[in-house]
């Protein structure tokens, strides 16, 4: 169930991450989230509250910097990336009686998601879905041609913050499944493969959701059979699919090329 919800989120948000080329920014958000995890434990807050609050905060700072000073944004994201991680580790050190399995946040533990978290995930999933449906064409225009969207009076800046906020939200959710190290893979691989076959953004979202679902189920099944870490197995399935699609594309191009030469 957690995997299913994650797939929907990955499909929708991942698509925006790929077409807007902000995978690095998403990576920064994911790692900064670790600071949030540390904070949640240090203050004894529930995971979602602490992590989400901190991650949203870090993400919105990153969004503001990307809008203000594009050419320096990558450095700044790198700093927040590392800073978030460092803060998380220190806060966990300082937490008395700390004995949570750190690995479960780094690599995820899809099978150990409590029921209460599941409800929160469902709510988040629905809100992201509704926001995207409402602003679908605005987001489409912003992603494709920001300047033109701005000329049409689309509130581009507001939408950008909204998008980054939604990315932060999704990352916090997906961390439960594959862990923060592997979040980026699940967020970018399915949309990347889907982009080649999709005729529209809508279709790209649908295909990546299905792919993500497939990777999660296959990964879980393999990890069960061979007794492996589930998050890592899911990602390895995705990476394998990525290379297969790459190879297929390459062979297809070569065939087209030799055909063209033959003519």
């Amino acid at each position, binding site marked *: 169930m957690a995997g299913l919800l994650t797939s929907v989120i990955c499909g929708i948000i991942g698509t925006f991450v790929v077409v807007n080329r902000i995978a690095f920014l998403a990576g920064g958000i994911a790692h900064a989230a670790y600071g949030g995890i540390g904070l949640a434990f240090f203050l004894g807050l529930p995971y979602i509250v602490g992590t989400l609050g901190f991650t949203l905060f870090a993400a919105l700072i990153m969004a503001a910097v990307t809008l203000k000073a594009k050419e320096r944004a990558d450095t700044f994201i790198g700093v927040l990336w590392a800073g978030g991680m460092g803060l998380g580790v220190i806060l966990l050190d300082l937490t008395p009686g700390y004995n949570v399995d750190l690995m479960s946040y780094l690599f995820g533990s899809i099978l150990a998601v409590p029921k209460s978290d599941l409800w929160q995930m469902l709510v988040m999933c629905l809100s992201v879905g509704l926001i995207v449906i409402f602003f679908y*064409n605005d987001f489409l225009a912003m992603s494709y*041609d920001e300047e*033109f969207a701005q*000329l049409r*009076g*689309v509130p581009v800046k507001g939408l950008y913050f909204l998008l980054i906020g939604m990315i932060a939200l999704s990352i916090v959710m997906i961390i439960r499944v594959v862990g923060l190290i592997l979040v980026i893979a699940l967020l970018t691989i399915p949309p990347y493969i889907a982009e080649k076959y999709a005729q529209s953004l809508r279709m790209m979202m649908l295909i990546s959701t299905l792919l993500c679902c497939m990777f999660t189920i296959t990964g879980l099944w393999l990890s069960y059979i061979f007794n492996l870490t589930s998050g890592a197995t899911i990602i390895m399935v995705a990476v394998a699919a990525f290379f297969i699609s790459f190879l297929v594309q390459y062979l297809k191009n070569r065939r087209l090329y030799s055909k063209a030469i033959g003519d």
Partner: protein
Amino acid sequence: MDKPVIDIKNLWFSFNGEAVLQDVNFTLYHKEFLAMIGPNGGGKTTLLKLMLGLFEADRGDIRVLGQNPRQAAHRIGYVPQDIHINKNFPISVLDVVLMGRLRSGISWSHHKKDDRIASQLALEKVEMEQFKNRHVDELSGGQQQRVFIARALVTEPEILILDEPTASVDAKGQAKIYTILKDLNEKVTILVVSHDLLALSSYIKSVACVNRRVHFHGAAEVTEEMLEMAYQCPVELIAHGLPHRVLRAHNGD
């Protein structure tokens, strides 16, 4: 004379401390067909973006349709120079054109039936209706440009601004685009940035040379001097069916 469509007075603009445009003055009237020429980096695109309200001037005044550029932006149809920015983006021709029908502000962004009809009509105007469901990426440069012109047209613009619409288009495609523009010019004011003044010479009504300063030539007269400016090398002037006309020299040159 009727009211100016674009009115620029004493405009200055600098970027990173470097002056890009100095003391620009010009006025454009209704149903004008202006070609903007000048060397790369001379400030042509910058001037367009100032008119569109995407950039803010340091000094001086721009009025577009009697309004501040930012307020008037939705009354201008804009065809940008870089249409290949997002090459792999999964989007169909019709979806690109529909973008021109987006409503401003925060509202449900769903496209209605009349948005689709308007987009269909715009595509027919540029003779691209048979490609409406195709991926934009599959089209040739000229066909893509026509799609972007259609996108600008569905906004029902009073001014159409095109930034080098024929830069990556073959000769046949160029002729097609110019014919489309000529037809459109019966209703709307057109401002086009272009390097090939020759191809345009029978359509344009006025010329502006942009190279930090702007020299405006009210009547369409193509001189060797202007062509040299456009190509940055001496060329022989051949304009079919056009008598040679001589422009008066730029003031102060």
